[in-house]
C-alpha cells in the first residue's frame, strides 16, 4: 500500500470519528408532483416509500406543488415537528426553485446550504416520459443520492466584506469617460488613467458620426470637460497601470506616470511649439500632418497643458527659454502612484489595423501615397484639418476624381489571423462615402464589399440613402491595388461577383476600411490585471451572453472596444452598465460572499503548491509569514479546481468534498435497494 493510500485511509477514519462526534443528521424528504409534470411519469408515492427506508430520513412526503405556499408550509411544519436539520426536495431544477426552498428553511432558522435540491423533472420525468418504470427507478436513485449528499452538508456562512469606496477607470476614450462620469454621478471617487497626453480617444479624431452625421467633438466635449472638472474624478494622463494587488472590493494599483516636462502653470499660449525646430508626424492626426517635439495634440485638447516628446526632442532648450510662464521643465521624472480602489473598469479601446501587412494593397509603399485608411480620411475631412477639410489626396494635393473604398481590410481574413468581422466598417465607409459625395457631387465613389452589414435602427436606412446618392456598391473583395509605373495611376482590381465581371477601377484615392484590433499595450496590462484574453487578443468577458460586461476576474469590468469591436453607442451603453456594476458594491459599502471555499487539511498538505497553479482566480497563495498555502476567501470562486490538483487530497471544497460526492455516486451507480447504499 502506498503512502498516499495509507493517508487517504487515515482521512476516512478520522472522518468517521468526527461523524460519530456529531449528532445524527435528521433529513426530511419532500417529493413534488409538479401537477402532471412529474407525477404522470414518476410514481411519486413509490419514491416517497423508498425514501422512508433510507438512513437518517425521519420524514418523507409528497405534494401537488411543493413551491406553492401550502407546499412551503408543509416543509416548515415538518421542520418544526420532526426537528429536521436538513431538507431534500425532489422537484425541478435547482436554478428554478432551489432558492425558494432554501429561503423557506432559512426562515425556520436552518442555514440555507443545508437544503439539497433533487431534479426529478428536467432530469427525469420529462426526458423519460415514455419509460414510466425506468423513470421511477431513476427518481428513487436520484432521491437517495440527494439524501446521501445531504447527510454531510455543513452550514456555510455569508460574510460581508467592506469595500474601498473608489473606482479606477483605465482608458479615457468615449467608453472610459462615460463610465467615469456615471461613477462620479453616483458619488464614487473615481481615478481615470490615460496613457496618452490627452483624453477623448479615437472619437476626438473623427469628423462625423453615423448615422446622423453629428460632430463627435460636440458630442464628446461635455464628457471630456465634465470628467476633467468633476471633483469626484482624479485624471491621470500619460499614465499606465503597472501592477494590481488585492481582490474584488479592495484592489491596490500601481500607476506609473510619465513626465510631461511642462508644469501645470502652462498657459497653453503655444510659444514653445511655435519656436520648436523639430517636426514629426502627428499620431493624433494619423500621420496626416506634422507636429513639433513640444506640442499639444490639438487645440481643444484636455488637459490643455503642452507636452514634450522626449524621443523627438533635440534638447535645444529653445522652448525653455521662450516660455513666458517658465513652465517647461526638462528635469521632471517618472513617478509611480499607488491608489486603492474597490472596482476597476477596463476601457482601453482599440487600435486601427495596419494594412501594410496585406502586401497586395501596398499600403505605406512608395508610389502608393494615395492609399489611406478610413481614419486618415477622417483626418483630412475634419474641421481644421491640414487641408482645411478639403479632400486633397496626399500624393499631389489634387482633388481626386474617383474614390474607391475597400472593406474588410484585416477583418474576416484568416491570412492575417483576424477571423472576426469588425462590424462598424460598413457604416464607417458608407458615412465617409456620403460625406465625400455631398461635398464633391462629381467625385465617383465606389465601395468594394464582401457583405454589407448594417444591423440596428437607422443603419439600413443610412445605407439606402448612400445608394440613392449614387455611391456605387461593388460586391467583391479586391485582389490588389495596382499602380501604373509610367503614369502613377492607381487601379483597384476587383470582381463584381454579382455580374461575374472582373473590374479594373481607375482610382485617384483608395481608402481602406481597416479592422479594429486590440491595442498593442494590452498584453502587459492584461497580465497586470490578471484578466483572460481570447485568441483575438481582446479581453474575454465572463460570459458571452449572460455577463458580457464583467471580466473573467471579479471586480474588473469591461467597457467599449476592449471587449471586442464596437461602435460608439454600443461602447457608451456597455460603459453605463459597467459603471453601475462597478458602483453597486462601493455604494452599498460591502460585498456579500458565501464562504463556500476549500478547506486545507494541513496534516495532509505537503506544501507542493500545485493548488496555487490550478486556481484560476488566483485565490490560493503561499503565505510569506509561515510559508504555508493559504486561501483568499474573498477572491475564491468555489470552482473546486484545486481539489483534483492536490496529490494528497488535502484541499477539499466545502460541501463538495470527494467523500460527499462519492456518497452521492454510490446511490446512482447501481439499481435502488431497500435501505439504500452507503458508500463504504
Amino acid at each position, binding site marked *: 500500500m502506498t503512502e498516499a493510500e495509507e493517508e487517504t485511509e487515515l482521512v476516512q477514519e478520522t472522518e468517521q470519528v468526527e461523524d460519530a462526534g456529531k449528532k445524527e443528521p435528521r433529513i426530511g424528504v419532500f417529493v413534488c408532483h409538479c401537477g402532471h409534470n412529474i407525477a404522470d411519469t414518476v410514481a411519486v408515492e413509490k419514491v416517497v416509500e423508498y425514501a422512508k427506508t433510507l438512513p437518517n430520513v425521519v420524514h418523507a412526503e409528497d405534494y401537488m406543488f411543493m413551491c406553492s405556499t401550502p407546499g412551503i408550509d408543509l416543509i416548515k411544519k415538518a421542520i418544526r415537528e420532526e426537528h429536521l436539520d436538513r431538507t431534500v426536495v425532489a422537484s425541478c*431544477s*435547482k*436554478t428554478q426553485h432551489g432558492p425558494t426552498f432554501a429561503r423557506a428553511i432559512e426562515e425556520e432558522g436552518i442555514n440555507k446550504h443545508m437544503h439539497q435540491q433533487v*431534479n426529478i*423533472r*428536467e*432530469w427525469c420525468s*420529462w*426526458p*423519460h*416520459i*415514455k*419509460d414510466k418504470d*425506468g*423513470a421511477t*427507478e*431513476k427518481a428513487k*436513485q*436520484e432521491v437517495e*443520492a440527494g439524501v446521501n449528499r445531504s447527510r454531510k452538508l455543513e452550514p456555510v456562512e455569508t460574510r460581508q466584506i467592506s469595500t474601498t469606496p473608489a473606482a479606477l477607470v483605465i482608458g479615457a476614450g468615449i467608453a472610459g469617460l462615460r463610465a467615469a462620469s456615471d461613477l462620479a454621478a453616483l458619488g464614487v471617487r473615481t481615478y481615470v488613467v490615460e496613457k496618452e497626453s490627452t483624453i477623448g480617444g479615437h472619437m476626438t479624431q473623427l469628423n462625423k458620426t453615423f448615422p446622423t452625421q453629428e460632430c463627435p467633438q460636440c458630442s464628446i466635449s461635455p464628457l471630456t470637460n465634465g470628467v476633467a472638472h468633476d471633483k469626484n474624478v482624479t485624471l491621470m494622463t500619460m499614465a499606465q497601470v503597472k501592477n494590481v494587488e488585492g481582490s474584488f472590493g479592495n484592489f491596490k494599483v500601481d500607476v506609473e506616470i510619465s513626465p510631461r516636462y511642462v508644469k501645470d502653470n502652462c498657459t497653453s499660449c503655444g510659444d514653445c511649439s511655435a519656436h520648436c525646430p523639430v517636426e514629426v508626424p502627428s499620431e493624433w492626426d494619423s500621420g496626416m500632418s506634422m507636429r513639433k517635439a513640444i506640442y499639444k495634440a490639438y487645440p481643444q485638447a484636455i488637459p490643455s497643458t503642452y507636452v514634450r516628446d522626449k524621443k523627438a526632442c533635440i534638447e535645444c532648450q529653445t522652448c525653455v527659454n521662450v516660455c513666458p510662464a517658465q513652465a517647461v521643465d526638462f528635469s521632471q521624472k517618472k513617478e509611480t502612484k499607488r491608489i486603492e480602489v474597490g472596482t476597476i473598469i477596463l476601457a482601453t479601446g482599440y487600435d486601427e489595423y495596419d494594412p501594410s501587412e496585406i502586401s497586395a494593397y501596398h499600403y505605406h509603399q512608395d508610389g502608393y501615397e494615395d492609399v489611406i485608411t478610413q481614419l486618415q480620411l477622417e483626418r483630412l475631412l475634419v474641421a481644421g484639418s491640414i487641408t482645411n477639410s478639403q479632400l486633397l489626396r496626399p500624393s499631389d494635393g489634387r482633388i481626386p476624381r474617383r474614390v474607391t473604398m475597400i472593406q474588410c481590410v484585416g477583418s474576416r481574413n484568416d491570412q492575417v489571423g483576424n477571423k472576426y468581422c469588425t462590424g462598424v466598417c460598413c457604416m464607417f465607409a458608407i458615412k465617409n462615402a456620403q460625406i465625400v459625395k455631398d461635398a464633391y457631387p462629381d467625385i465617383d465613389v465606389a465601395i468594394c464589399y464582401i457583405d454589407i452589414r448594417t444591423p440596428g435602427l437607422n443603419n439600413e436606412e443610412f445605407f439606402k440613402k448612400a445608394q440613392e446618392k449614387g455611391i456605387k456598391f461593388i460586391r467583391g473583395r479586391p485582389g490588389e491595388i495596382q499602380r501604373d509605373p509610367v503614369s502613377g495611376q492607381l487601379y483597384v482590381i476587383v470582381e463584381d461577383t454579382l455580374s461575374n465581371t472582373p473590374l479594373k477601377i481607375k482610382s485617384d484615392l483608395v481608402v481602406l476600411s481597416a479592422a479594429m484590433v486590440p491595442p498593442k499595450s494590452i498584453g502587459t496590462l492584461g497580465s497586470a490585471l490578471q484578466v*483572460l484574453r*481570447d*485568441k483575438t487578443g481582446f479581453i474575454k468577458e*465572463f*460570459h*458571452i*451572453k449572460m455577463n458580457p460586461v464583467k471580466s*473573467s476576474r471579479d471586480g474588473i469590468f469591461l467597457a467599449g472596444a476592449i471587449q471586442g469591436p464596437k461602435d460608439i453607442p454600443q461602447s457608451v451603453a456597455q460603459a453605463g452598465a459597467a459603471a453601475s456594476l462597478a458602483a453597486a458594491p462601493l455604494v452599498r459599502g460591502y460585498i456579500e460572499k458565501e464562504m463556500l471555499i476549500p478547506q486545507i487539511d494541513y496534516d495532509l498538505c505537503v506544501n507542493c503548491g500545485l493548488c496555487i497553479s*490550478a486556481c*484560476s*482566480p488566483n485565490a490560493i497563495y503561499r503565505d510569506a509569514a509561515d510559508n504555508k498555502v493559504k486561501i483568499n476567501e474573498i477572491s475564491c*470562486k*468555489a*470552482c*473546486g*479546481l484545486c*481539489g*483534483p490538483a492536490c496529490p494528497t*487530497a488535502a484541499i477539499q*471544497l466545502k460541501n*463538495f468534498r*470527494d467523500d460527499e*460526492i*462519492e456518497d*452521492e*455516486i*454510490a446511490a*446512482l*451507480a*447501481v*439499481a435502488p435497494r431497500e435501505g439504500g*447504499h452507503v*458508500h463504504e
Partner: protein
Amino acid sequence: MSENESKKRNVVVFACNECGQGAMNTAGVARIGYDTAIKIVPLQCSGQANPVLILEALKDGADAVGVVGCCIGACHFVNGNMLSMHRIKLMKKLFKELGYSDQQINHYTARAAEGETAVGDFEDIMVRLKRAEKEGNTLPGGW
C-alpha cells in the same frame, strides 16, 4: 444484441454547474428523450471531476462515466473543462495500457442553450459503452 439492448445500465454523468447542467435542463424542457441509464451528478465545474471520483463511480458499479462541461474557451472558471478533457485523455491511455476499453470514460462539452448537445453526448456515451461491452474488455464493477 437484444439482450444487450434491454440490459439495465447505470451511467454516471458529472455535469458542470453552468453549460453542463444548463444543457440538461434545456433538454428536459424540450422533452428530448434519452436513456434512463443516464444519472447526473451536479458539480461546480467539470474540472472538479477528478480520477478518484471517476474510478469510484466505476468501482461502485457504474457501467460508464461521462463528464460534461462548457464548450472549450467558454469555461466559467477559465480552463476547468480543458483540465478535465486532458485528464480524461490521460485516463483513457492508462485504461488502454491496463488492457481495458477506453470507451467507458469520456469527456464532452455542451451548450446551455441547446439541449440536443447534451443529449447527443448521452447517446454517444451509450454507443461507446455498448461497443466496449461487445468487445468485452470493460472494467468490471465492484472491485
